[in-house]
């Protein structure tokens, strides 16, 4: 394979050069670094030396011609290499690749983009296209090297030529988040990224296990029904969640290993002397976990009001940093659509999280008879490194017992 010598950019940004005089003839042998040709550009007149040793196979450009950078000027048959392309060993080809690539760019740049080439557009133009709903893949760029300009995008938008739906699905690997009809790629960023990292870290460190138990919440349902209008009069939506938070406190005090975190670095279990309960809250952006601080010293209604306030703030994106900090335990509930059970992921570095599921009329056996009762499940995930199953079960049954008998521990003063 003869080696093609192209006109390099011999100045800084020279576009073309005039072939002034050839210093070699076809058939002559040349050494590497031997001058081949005199070229005049608008910056300088220079001699271009040979990059290879061999024999001149062909001269492609006549004296006096002005040619763009990247034009093949001359071909050199390399000594010791046969004419057949197969004679070029892969190793030689690889070794030459960077060199030939470094001379090639201008030629490539000047050529029109090949069919199927990826879209060329600046980030600003991409943004504009996104805003105007124009699919870049369907446009032909009028800018340098076929780049799509903002004018191209505006023109397409005004003629409606390139709506995303009508655009041919030209896959653009690595382009900005885009739909190609088969998949949409959305960057993992912001809150989503933080959730991802946080969940990953939790599962990577804690030894998760989940324990699920059922409760008969008929009395709780009646209790809540009785108080609902009174709460509503105070502008409060009384939820089971508020009961759960209040019901947790005594069992957490009794089982301090659940109101704790594990300091991995120092190998110490940190028992918390305060009880602050995070409440998993769904927002448009994703999951957030605002904290009801010190529910022990709040009445049931105050807890309900606080949950309400925090979830509204979370949805409005107005939570303050201190409203997200210092939780010792977490409760998660998806409300009325709470399902049967879940395997909640611990809110790292806490060791316990309680899932509250749908409470509804289900058949239950009471005194050997099947009756309709308000049944529901609670799922408790724990870090087994800190808390064993027996203790977890004891804790969960304590909570269930309290929820099953709210009047036993909720004094009128505690209700609010």
């Amino acid at each position, binding site marked *: 394979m003869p080696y093609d010598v192209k006109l390099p*950019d011999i100045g800084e940004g020279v576009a073309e050069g005039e072939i002034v005089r050839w210093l070699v003839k076809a058939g002559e042998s040349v050494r590497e670094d031997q001058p081949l040709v005199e070229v005049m550009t608008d910056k300088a007149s220079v001699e271009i030396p*040979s990059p290879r040793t061999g024999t001149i196979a062909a001269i492609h450009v006549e004296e006096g011609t002005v040619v763009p950078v990247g034009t093949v000027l001359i071909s050199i048959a390399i000594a010791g290499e046969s004419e057949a392309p197969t004679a070029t060993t892969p190793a030689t080809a690889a070794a*030459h690749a960077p060199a030939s690539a470094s001379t090639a760019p201008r030629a490539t740049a000047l050529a029109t983009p090949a069919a199927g080439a990826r879209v060329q557009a600046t980030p600003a133009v991409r943004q504009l296209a996104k805003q105007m709903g124009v699919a870049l893949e369907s446009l032909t760029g009028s800018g340098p090297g076929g780049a799509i300009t903002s004018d191209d995008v505006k023109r397409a938008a005004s003629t409606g030529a390139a709506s995303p739906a009508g655009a041919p699905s030209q896959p653009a690997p690595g382009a900005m988040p885009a739909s190609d009809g088969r998949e949409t790629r959305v960057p993992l960023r912001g809150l989503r990224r933080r959730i991802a990292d946080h969940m990953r870290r939790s599962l990577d460190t804690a030894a998760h296990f989940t324990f699920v138990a059922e409760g008969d919440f008929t009395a709780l349902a009646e209790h809540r029904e009785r108080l609902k209008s009174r709460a509503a009069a105070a502008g409060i939506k009384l939820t089971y969640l508020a009961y759960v938070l209040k019901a947790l406190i005594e069992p957490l005090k009794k089982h301090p290993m659940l109101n704790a975190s594990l300091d991995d670095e120092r190998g110490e279990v940190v028992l918390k002397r305060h009880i602050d309960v995070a409440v998993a809250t769904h927002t448009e952006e994703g999951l957030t976990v605002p904290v009801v601080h010190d529910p022990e010293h709040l009445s049931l209604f105050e807890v309900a009001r606080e949950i309400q306030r925090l979830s509204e703030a979370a949805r409005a994106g107005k939570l303050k940093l201190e409203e997200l900090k210092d939780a010792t335990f977490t409760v998660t509930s998806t409300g009325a659509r709470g399902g049967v059970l879940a395997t909640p992921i611990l809110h790292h570095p806490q060791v316990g999280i309680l899932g509250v599921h749908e409470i509804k009329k289900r058949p239950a056996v009471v005194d050997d008879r099947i009756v309709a009762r308000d049944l529901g499940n609670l799922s408790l995930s724990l870090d087994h490194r800190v808390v064993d199953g027996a203790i977890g079960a004891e804790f969960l049954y304590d909570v269930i017992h309290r929820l099953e008998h709210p009047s036993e521990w909720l004094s009128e003063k505690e209700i609010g």
Partner: protein
Amino acid sequence: MSAATLQLLDPEGQVVGAVPEISNADLVRLFRHMVRMRALDQRMLSLQRQGRVGFYGTATGQEAAVTGSAYALRDTDWVFPALREMGVSLWRGTTIKELVCQLMGNSGDVLIGRQMPCHFSDRKVRTVAWSSVIGTQLVHAMGAAWAAKIRREDTISMGYMGDGASSAGDFHAAANFAGVYKLPVVFFCQNNQWAISVPLTHQTASESIAVKAVAYGFPGVRVDGNDILAVISATRQAVDRARRGEGPTLVEAVTFRMGGHSSSDDPTRYRSAEEVATWERRDPIPRFRSFLSKRGLVKDEDETRWTEELAAEISQAVEESEKLPPPPLETLFSDVYEKMPWHLEEQMRYALAMGEGQKFEGRFPL
């Protein structure tokens, strides 16, 4: 050459002053380095013409000024170079392959392809990164000298400049500050008569560059920059003075740029062949060769052997460098922040997804 210019060897290599104390082995080493610089320059300019490196600026004709000034420094001193001081790094331990890799901006480049070709610096030889903007390195040299003084280190800074930089504001700011605070810095001016196409007569109305030091309260000395012994003598005094805590010196080495300003320049358009011919007779290499051969330190066959050795060394460096891939695409994003922010991480992922092949084209696919 004016009377105030220090010269120890005349253009014929005759000793005309007090030769500084230098071992015979070092004299030979210095000469071989000058030959090495010239061989490298010629080969790199040829590669540039072939499109194998993007840009080059030779120091041909200035080898004595470069080598002599580098010789006066300790390894622990700091160098703030300009365009024609690649030879200083080379003297201090940078390899030819590292220089070639920088010209190609490949993965063997100590600057990871982030600098213009020939804009060389190398952390391991205490040569600090610089900018094409004229004279900015002098302020850095002064600042580093100030730091050394505050830290009570015995390192000095060498700020290189050309005659053109003597008109830049940064030169005057650096010189004034260095003078006021008696900083351990040497300003080494390679006055090669031409700032690209601007001749020295249009550069200054002063009788010399060296005289400008007077205004800032420190010595300015003028030496024959094509006489390596004079360069060493003057630079040593300046370096010693700085190290003793007596403050800066401006050394003006009067020399000549025998080639173009860079590979993009055609000097025949603005200067006469007679001028070039005059300076060719003052070429620093034959002058030093003559001195050494009279002392029996270098024989013709030594230089023939060196020429072959150097050609082989350079060819091997070029061959090895051309095999190296470009720097990893990730390096476009690294080192900007201590910890990469999310938006750069995102851009990096997109860039990587665009494929390794793209970067060979030398343009980033937007």
